[in-house]
């Protein structure tokens, strides 16, 4: 196998890197791909807090990278989704445990066993960023429609281009009503400034938080708009030509009801 190593990054914190990594990883696994999601931060473990994964962690990415264990030992199999594996972050706060070189070597091994290796990059552009970007073939930049997030994404895009990686963009946490009212940047505004290929648009969706708490994979929920957006993103990453869907404002319950019973026409 000659898998792809893809870093998911953003610059700014809390914009949805971990959510995107988990969802895209799950969605690719549902397409029958062998997927490893690698926690370069401590985010994915948090995401799995509710699913009792914590007590199954024996080895982590540093152990695997340094050859203290086999990759198979560090990769924890997801309980509900076949072909999906998590390689957890190191618990120790020794920041020098990983280097770009060590990560390049680890990913060389991971490529042999997985179709996709997704690296959940920590916020910022420091060491953790360098470690995550060094082994990457491709990059996905996540940003939200906020000025500060766009600014940081722009910075990261420049750094990625400087390493000859062409990034693609996910705009997350879009609130269509706010965009309509001019209270939120539209995805066009964001793409205008960042000027990179758009991979997908993900709306703000309460199901994201619920799924984090219950551990039920978002991409398996047919009624989760965010989950479905991430599935389409995964298919685009697979090379399928699927048009970008723009999140639409939900008609309120009363309006819908009005249409059904024939008033408010």
């Amino acid at each position, binding site marked *: 196998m000659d898998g792809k190593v893809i870093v998911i990054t953003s610059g700014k914190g809390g914009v949805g890197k971990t959510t995107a990594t988990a969802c895209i990883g799950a969605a690719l696994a549902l397409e029958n791909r062998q997927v490893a999601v690698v926690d370069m931060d401590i985010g994915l473990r948090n995401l799995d807090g509710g699913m009792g994964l914590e007590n199954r962690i024996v080895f982590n990415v540093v152990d695997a990278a340094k050859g203290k264990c086999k990759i198979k030992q560090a990769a924890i199999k997801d309980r509900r989704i076949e072909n999906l594996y998590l390689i957890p972050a190191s618990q120790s706060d020794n920041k020098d445990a990983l280097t770009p070189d060590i990560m390049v070597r680890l990913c060389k091994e991971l490529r042999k066993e997985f179709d996709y290796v997704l690296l959940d990059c920590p916020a910022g552009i420091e060491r953790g960023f360098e470690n995550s970007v060094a082994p990457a073939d491709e990059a996905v930049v996540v940003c939200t429609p906020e*000025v500060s997030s*766009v*600014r*940081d994404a*722009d*910075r990261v*895009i*420049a*750094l990625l281009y400087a390493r000859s990686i062409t990034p693609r963009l996910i705009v997350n946490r879009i609130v269509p009503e706010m965009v309509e009212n001019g209270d939120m940047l539209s995805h066009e505004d964001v793409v205008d*400034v960042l*000027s990179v290929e758009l991979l997908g648009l993900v709306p703000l969706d309460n199901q994201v938080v619920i799924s984090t708490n219950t551990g039920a994979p978002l991409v398996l929920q047919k009624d989760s708009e965010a989950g479905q957006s991430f599935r389409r993103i995964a298919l685009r990453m697979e090379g399928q030509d699927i048009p970008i869907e723009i999140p639409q404002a939900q008609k309120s319950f009363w309006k819908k009801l009005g249409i059904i019973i024939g008033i408010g026409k």
Partner: protein
Amino acid sequence: MDVQLSDKSQVRLKGVRDGFWVTLDPSLPADYIQEELTRVFNQLQHLAFNSHVTLDMGGPEGRESIVEMLRAFLKSKFNVASVAVAPASPPPKEVPVNGEHGGDKSHKPDMSSVWMEHHSDALVIAGRVRSGQKITAQKHLVILGDVNPGSELIAGGDILIMGTLGGIALAGQPDNEAAIILAIGFKPIQIQIGGIIATEVPVSQRHTLEFARVDHGDIVVEDYIKTNPFGRLTWPEVR
């Protein structure tokens, strides 16, 4: 270059091989001569810079004091390289300023080659300038592309952006307040011209060509097409 001014003028000027030949009547009042010289040299603009001027007053005898005065005046006001006095003999034939076609019958210096003697440095960059990136130019800076918020441009001279300006632009550094900043879509975070800083630049919603300049110690932003700031210049000038 037809720099031979109105015949009525008592001070006449023409381009010769390595500079200008100025014919004047030394019996005229000194301040009148200065006034007339100012008028004709103003029309030459930068061409006067470093040029060799010959004053033809019908011979050098007895003109030392006025020559000294005019020499100091032309050097300080127009930065000419030298001021000599013509002998009593007739002036040389008018020739192209670049001297390549000596004896050209047209008696017109070759204006298009004159510009080759001047140069004005510009750093020309194509592409998008992103957040965190900083571009510094010794003199002028030309960006063919957009300048994103979070980026910084610094230039000794003008900054000309064929795209939107969303970052910080510092023109005329450190102290050239004659510099301008020009962009299509003027939405800078901060601009500075020479030592003057404008932090709250009114954000333009339109996609028109606008420029910032210093006016009475303040930075003003204006519509470039409407203002046409250099349209009034009587002579093309090197910046």
